[in-house]
């Protein structure tokens, strides 16, 4: 592939960037509705509160109410505009799919595109089988020649690293894809994921015109990838094109409800967002295509002033990259993608909260950027919405606390005007919360957009009602945790970079749930006693929230379990009913690996380490991939000492740092291979005696431990 692919031929420089007149009209319309709704709600609240003049607590309550109501209105109008867009008789003039003619959909692709997947201690089988599916899906389109794949590893668990190397080699061998799929491991994971991608851009970015960024759990079809490249070619004004990744593969109730909600309500919200965001949409960090030249020139991230958690390395890099890209004059667009772009979600409530903790800190960091110079106003609004998505939980909590204060000090309500205002406000708020959902459900019943058959439409309707119950129970629990995360961030408690769990793996962890949720239940109990003491009517008013909090532990257990109602066709998504080829192919291969006999748990735990020292081929691969440079961090004597300990006491006697020091040194890795095989039984730790005896029995092929065993012909049959 030549470097010429790195420069876009400018057809019309601004093509893809919506006309300013259109964007302004759309935003004026949208924010007029949002503003009107917010002002109306705030005015009604003021009328209700100010019957006897405003006290401090009433002002505080009103202050918390304003951003909450703004957020509620934004969601409401986004959904309603989305439903309108999906049903309007004439197509949206800004729809990017319409920028391609039918002939252009068939034209050969010449632009060089790198598909990059940054990974960090992820499930190796899932990563490489996902990649295989994407690769085969692209091959099936006949346009794969200009795509290269890069697995960009920052994994710091040694066994994982070795398994990644061997899975990469095996995948290349099975697909005959040497020179097409590349593996790169960073020694030091500087600046985490964004640093990983930037490192790719610095080393190889100039070779490619586009970069498709994937997460470790992403899955994309070849057809959609081609369409994205063609749209970027036709619209040189677009810097980032973000797809709508649909959630797949969930096995728990929480996961299935989330993926159902995303499948049912997501398209309307996406259409609505696209309506008012126009060329200033957000980048979500994955399942998107990026124009590399402007990205390299303009989107390197500076550290924020101060230390973490507010300062330092930017965690939620994607929003900032989108803002920088827009600042550089390129559009960031959303692409309406009903199929072809997928991701997985967290399986349990605890996993979801761990992810939210990270996202919360990332979004709170954007506070600095709100007031920075040079942003497009919409970029500021995007930052604000990101901050509000977590800060609103604290505001809601504050609102409820102030409401408790006010209920504890009641004043006589005499004015009929105030009573009417309260009733109207209640009705309006209920409409803002439930009307978008009702409208989308009605739309599905009438149009059958998700499912065609009347029975499935009815089941979708029923599932829509049931998910309301789940979300109603979850919302107060999430409010408490998100509030805690915001406070932690303000207090300076940062988050560690941890591996995300994407599958349940062995059932619900009761202990973890109990440890995390008991304070929530205690809080609900105390609050309930206070509310009862204040008045019975107040207790009834606040009881829906308190009941959810009180039941936090059973709720967390129930939503993290695998009783999901699937056999009754509840929460069914189109991807479950009719899996797309790219998903079907991957799941077949995952099932094959899952069904295999396992080694002893101790050997499985250190499998990568066992292989790199015992297997002559994997040892050769690892040494070949290591950069040959002198290990300046540690002395030869130190390496010999830990190597001796590894032989005599086994890998469990070494710390991760010791293993890491050893595994980075080519001489130590090579010599250990022979030292282990040379040692008599009495010189070896029991781990190695078992490993030597069992290794050959278990190994059907040294590299295929984590991958499905497919021949080239199998692969062709399985083409998605």
């Amino acid at each position: 592939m030549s470097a010429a692919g790195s420069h876009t031929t400018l057809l019309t420089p601004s093509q893809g960037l919506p006309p300013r007149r259109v964007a302004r009209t759309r935003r004026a319309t949208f924010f007029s509705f949002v503003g009107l709704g917010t002002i109306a709600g705030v005015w009604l609240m003021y009328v209700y509160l100010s019957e006897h003049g405003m006290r401090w607590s009433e002002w505080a309550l009103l202050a918390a109410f304003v951003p909450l109501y703004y957020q509620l209105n934004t969601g409401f109008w986004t959904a309603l505009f989305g439903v309108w867009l999906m049903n309007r008789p004439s197509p949206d003039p800004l729809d990017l799919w319409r920028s391609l003619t039918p002939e252009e959909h068939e034209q050969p692709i010449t632009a060089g595109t790198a598909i990059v997947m940054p990974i960090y201690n992820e499930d190796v089988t899932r990563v490489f089988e996902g990649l295989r599916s994407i690769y085969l899906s692209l091959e099936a389109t006949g346009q794969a020649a200009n795509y290269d794949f890069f697995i960009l590893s920052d994994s710091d668990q040694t066994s994982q690293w070795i398994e990644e190397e061997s899975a990469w080699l095996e995948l290349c061998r099975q697909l005959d894809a040497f020179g097409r799929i590349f593996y790169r491991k960073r020694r030091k994971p500087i600046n985490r994921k964004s640093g990983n991608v930037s490192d790719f851009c610095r080393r190889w970015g100039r070779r490619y015109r586009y970069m498709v960024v994937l997460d470790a759990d992403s899955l994309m079809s070849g057809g959609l990838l081609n369409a994205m490249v063609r749209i970027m070619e036709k619209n040189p004004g677009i810097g980032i094109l973000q797809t709508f990744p649909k959630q797949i593969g969930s096995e728990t109730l929480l996961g299935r409800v989330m993926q159902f909600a995303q499948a049912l309500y997501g398209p309307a919200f996406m259409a609505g967002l696209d309506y008012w965001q126009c060329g200033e949409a957000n980048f979500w960090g994955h399942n998107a295509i990026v124009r590399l030249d402007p990205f390299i020139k303009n989107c390197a991230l500076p550290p924020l002033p101060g230390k973490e958690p507010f300062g330092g390395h930017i965690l939620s890099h994607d929003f900032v990259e989108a803002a920088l890209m827009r600042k550089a004059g390129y559009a960031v667009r959303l692409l309406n993608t009903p199929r072809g772009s997928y991701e997985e979600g967290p399986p349990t409530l605890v996993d979801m909260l761990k992810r939210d903790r990270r996202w919360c800190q990332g979004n709170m960091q954007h506070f600095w950027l709100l007031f920075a110079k040079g942003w497009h106003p919409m970029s500021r609004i995007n930052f604000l919405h990101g901050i509000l998505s977590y800060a609103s939980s604290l505001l809601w909590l504050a609102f409820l606390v102030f409401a408790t204060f006010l209920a504890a000090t009641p004043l006589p309500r005499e004015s009929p005007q105030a009573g009417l205002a309260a009733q109207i406000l209640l009705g309006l708020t209920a409409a803002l919360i439930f009307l978008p959902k009702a409208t989308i459900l009605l739309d599905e019943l009438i149009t059958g957009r998700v499912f065609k058959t009347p029975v499935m439409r009815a089941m979708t309707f029923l599932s829509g009602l049931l998910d309301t119950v789940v979300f109603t129970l979850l919302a107060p629990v999430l409010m408490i945790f998100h509030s805690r995360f915001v406070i932690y961030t303000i207090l300076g408690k940062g988050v560690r970079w941890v591996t995300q769990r994407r599958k349940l793996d062995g059932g619900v962890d009761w202990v973890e749930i109990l440890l995390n949720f008991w304070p929530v239940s205690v809080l609900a109990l105390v609050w309930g006693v206070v509310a009862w003491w204040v008045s019975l009517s107040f207790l009834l008013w606040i009881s829906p929230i308190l009941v959810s909090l009180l039941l936090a532990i059973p709720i967390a257990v129930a939503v993290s379990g695998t009783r999901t109602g699937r056999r009754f066709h509840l929460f069914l998504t189109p991807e479950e009913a009719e899996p797309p080829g790219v998903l079907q192919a991957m799941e077949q291969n995952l099932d094959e690996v899952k069904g295999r006999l396992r080694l002893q748990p101790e050997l499985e735990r250190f499998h990568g380490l066992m292989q790199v020292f015992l297997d002559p081929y994997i040892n050769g691969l690892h040494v070949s991939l290591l950069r040959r440079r002198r290990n300046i961090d540690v002395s030869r004597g130190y390496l010999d000492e830990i190597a001796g300990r590894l032989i005599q006491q086994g890998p469990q006697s070494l710390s991760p740092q010791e293993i890491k020091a050893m595994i980075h040194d080519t001489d130590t890795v090579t010599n250990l291979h022979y030292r282990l095989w040379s040692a008599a039984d009495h010189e070896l730790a029991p781990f190695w005696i078992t490993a030597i005896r069992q290794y050959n029995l278990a190994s059907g092929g040294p590299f295929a431990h984590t991958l499905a065993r497919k021949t080239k012909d199998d692969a062709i049959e399985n083409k998605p």
Partner: protein
Amino acid sequence: MEAVNIQFAPATGTEEEWNEAYARLADYFRSYQLHNRIRRTQLILETLRRAAEAHAREPGRTPTAHSIEQARLMLRDWLGTIYRDLNLSEAQIEAAGRLGFYLSGGPARWPHFFLDDENLPENMAEAMRSAVRTSGPGMQVSKMTPRDIDLGIVSDVAEDTFDTLGRHPMLRYALLITIAGSVLGYLYLLLR
């Protein structure tokens, strides 16, 4: 295929030690995915013969250690013959050469010629050489330099405040306690 004709009568070491060496060599050659048992036995016996000679010279080391060392030397010689035209160091030849044998399909296609540098088929040597020539895409280094973002006056003030709070945890907690105390005090005033 050559006839199996090995005289194995070690002058040094016990029978138990040589049996252990045999078992270890059997496992070792199996780890090369050589499923042809006859070839594996040939290799084991040839390696044991060399190891017995080495053990006679240096009886301080175990027969197992001598056997694996001999296997390594045989491998180095064999790979050295195949890769002598490529500009590789000895360590590179050893690592990449083993991998080259696997990637060329050697264990299944040419098990009889593993460690045999006298009867090496040319297509096998070429397949092994081309397997190690595959490498990653050449780097085309770009500059990706972060540009400072002017955070404006509000951020400057906020940064100073947070910086001060960050450097003085006591101040941070005092502020939090003050806020919480004010809220509770206000509640007390309301309810008394």
